[in-house]
């Protein structure tokens, strides 16, 4: 019976994926991509990856959906012109053959995976106690493979700088997006007043339980980012100009704290990012708490896009 649930899940997932590829209208494709993200969340759950499911629920179903929907609406005008460039039949057939070969090769690899799967789970379990956290994923992210997480935080920041660099010269240092004009008594303003307080509590809860249960900074930060964007979109509060000092500070405080702890490790424990015995949990919580606002602001501004209008009213 459990297998039947999983098969129906996989079929529905593939059906939606097929839809997003073959449908003519771009907006329909993107509209199919949102439920696809939600189904993918269930797929992670079926594979017992609950932390991944939480991340997918926050990012895949929330932020990516909003990003693509907004892009599809704004690119609607250019779509008709692009349709004229439809690929010919021969290209399609060749592409189909290539894709089928690829799929068959991967399927063969899946079937030939070794029976005794290699795993690092026992190693993680053995060293888990030293980190002081109970959630093995958090231990991997912030202790065993902390370098990856540090680089990731920096990659996000670099991505944001790349997006900002697309700003036209006159808008540099200004506010992202267009000025929002929304009825302050309308349903959207109501939603933006009621939902964020609850959302912030849930975000901090998800962040806090991350030490011992599924959850953590990425998921919490994504919810915080979504709540902030909701307030911006409702016009209750404008997007900040990107040259504000507090904004720049929030953006770098997480990576900066992470690097500082890394160098502390060089001095105290003899290697970059190694924690002195007994202080691991304290340092992990410190890094996570510094990363939370940085990640939230970075994710929100990634979605808000490059600055498009001057920030300071003359």
């Amino acid at each position, binding site marked *: 019976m459990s297998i039947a649930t999983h098969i129906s899940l996989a079929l529905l997932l593939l059906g939606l994926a097929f839809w997003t590829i073959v449908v003519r209208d771009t907006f329909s494709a*993107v509209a199919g991509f949102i439920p696809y993200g939600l189904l993918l969340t269930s797929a992670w759950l079926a594979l*017992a*990856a609950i932390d991944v499911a939480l991340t997918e629920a926050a990012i895949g179903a929330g932020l990516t959906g909003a990003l*693509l929907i907004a892009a599809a609406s*704004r690119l609607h005008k*250019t779509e008709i012109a692009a349709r004229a460039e439809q690929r010919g039949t021969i290209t*399609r057939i060749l592409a189909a053959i290539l894709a089928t070969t690829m799929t068959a090769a991967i399927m063969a690899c899946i079937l030939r995976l070794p029976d005794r799967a290699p795993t690092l789970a026992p190693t993680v379990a053995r060293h888990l106690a030293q980190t002081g956290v109970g959630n093995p994923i958090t231990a991997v992210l912030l202790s065993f493979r902390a370098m990856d997480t540090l680089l990731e935080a920096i990659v996000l920041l670099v991505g944001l700088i790349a997006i900002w660099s697309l700003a036209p010269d006159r808008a540099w240092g200004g506010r992202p997006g267009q000025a929002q004009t929304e009825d302050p008594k309308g349903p959207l303003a109501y939603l933006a007043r009621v939902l964020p307080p609850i959302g912030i509590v849930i975000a901090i809860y998800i962040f806090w339980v991350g030490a011992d249960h599924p959850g953590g900074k990425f998921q919490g930060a994504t919810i915080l980012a979504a709540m902030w964007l909701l307030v911006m979109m409702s016009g209750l509060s404008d997007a900040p100009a990107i040259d504000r000092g507090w904004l720049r500070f929030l953006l770098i405080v997480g990576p900066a704290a992470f690097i500082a702890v890394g160098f502390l490790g060089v001095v105290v424990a003899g290697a970059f990012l190694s924690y002195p015995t007994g202080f691991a949990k304290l340092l992990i919580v410190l890094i996570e708490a510094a990363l939370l606002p940085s990640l939230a602001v970075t994710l929100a501004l*990634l979605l808000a896009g490059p600055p498009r209008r001057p920030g300071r009213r003359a």
Partner: protein
Amino acid sequence: MTTTTIFGFCAAVLVGLGLYGLIVNPQPLRKLLAFNLMGNGVFLICAVIARRGAAAGMGGDPVPQALLITAIVVAFAASALAVALMLRLSEETGACSLSSTRGEGD
């Protein structure tokens, strides 16, 4: 037929679909969707491998799972950058297309 085989096959088809869409669809936004599908296929294979490595009371190998979380966040950042590029291109040229003749013609 076990759960890991089902989702492994599912991942293989996702990669194939994504590859097909990446080649066939001319619009950059559709290519981005297709690329995301391919990426999700790869992530799913990673999760299948993690699930097969379940041991020591954990539902799956935590190392690939932690990498997946990183990967999902970075994939979002890459998509955001791609979307920003497309919107800027359409602002600048009035069209959003990868073909060079079109951009110069407008």
